[in-house]
């Protein structure tokens, strides 16, 4: 039921934006009563909208985890993550629409969700770092936990804003990953 309400609320946000979406709209869209929505989101509209953003961010990372499944090492998983994040953020019509019209309402919520996700991304990367350590490619003296934390920070940063890089260009993604991870793992000089 929670998921159904969140999906309905998301549809409303896509249509009307964050400010104009009400608990009543979400209830109607989901085909449930207002009381049902309040039972799942006692905080009302605020909690519902925070839930929608969380839900979307989680869905994004769920798809990302699937997209990078075939990666065998830290460089590969970073490259695949950046390419996936670039593609799906670029194509996310609702995100860009709300970002344009209501950045003040949206961004703190995304930041909130991402802050909570930072440890999740780090944990996701830890096995890759451990594997690099086991195969002797992790740079000596580097604490694996710190390394995973750092890579998570950089992945989130470049996914958030590509800056001077074109993450749609595979060669650039390769160069970027080798630059930013060059201190974490020893990079083979050629493919």
């Amino acid at each position, binding site marked *: 039921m929670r998921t159904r309400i969140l999906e309905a609320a998301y549809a409303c946000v896509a249509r009307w934006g964050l400010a104009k979406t009400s608990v009543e709209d979400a209830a109607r869209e989901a085909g449930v009563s207002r009381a049902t929505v309040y039972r799942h989101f006692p905080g009302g509209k605020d909690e519902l909208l925070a839930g929608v953003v969380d839900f979307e961010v989680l869905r994004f990372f769920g798809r990302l985890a699937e997209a990078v499944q075939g990666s065998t090492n830290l460089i590969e998983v970073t490259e695949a993550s950046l390419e996936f994040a670039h593609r799906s953020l670029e194509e996310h019509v609702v995100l860009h629409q709300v970002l344009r019209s209501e*950045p003040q309402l949206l961004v703190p919520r995304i930041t909130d969700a991402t802050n909570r996700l930072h440890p999740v991304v780090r944990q996701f990367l830890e096995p890759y770092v451990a594997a690099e350590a086991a195969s002797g490619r992790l740079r000596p003296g*580097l604490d694996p936990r*710190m390394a995973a934390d750092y890579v998570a*920070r950089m992945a989130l*940063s470049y996914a958030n*804003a*590509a800056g001077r890089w074109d993450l749609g260009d595979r060669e650039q993604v390769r160069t970027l990953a080798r630059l930013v991870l060059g201190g974490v793992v020893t990079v083979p000089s050629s493919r």
Partner: protein
Amino acid sequence: MTAAAPAQPAAASSQEERILDAALVCIARWGLTKTGLDDVAREAGVSRATVYRAFPGGKDAVTEAVARTELARFFAAVGGQLAAADTLEDALTSGITEAGARIASHGALRTVVSFEPEEILPLLAFGRMDQVLAVCTAFAAPHLARFLDQATAAQVAEWAARVVVSYSSWPSVDVDLTDERSVRRLVRQLFLPALATSGSTP
């Protein structure tokens, strides 16, 4: 020597400075939203009319001037560190430490981030963050180009800016940007080996 200098502009600019310093104190204490021109005038020890004379645009103009002045101070301090460095390691270490320490100790910034994140976070998201990175890169890259080729200098300047933003925004148990030794370790471990590697590839 100074007698020939016109007194008016000097007085006006020190008056403006005083108002901006007062605004900074008020923002640190109450945040952006709750700070009114009355508060700023009282803190500066001037009348409301004086504030309006200096900043005819009112509160928005004061806020904008505060942001502009603080950014200029920030870049001047970081630039001073970058210019004084003799090696790439020193440039990155002193530049990142200066930036990290200034962000951490900035009272007004801390208040806004803690209590009015909606006023500042949009700057760090998506397209707006691209602009922030572009400004930081354009500023720092020429300094780093003393030690690196132009293209790499720009890449590393942007990379360092991301490190500053990330570790300033999310606390870390591993890295303390206000501690020079901690930053030097980060630069030695994460930046320098990568640059030695990429420098050796054709």
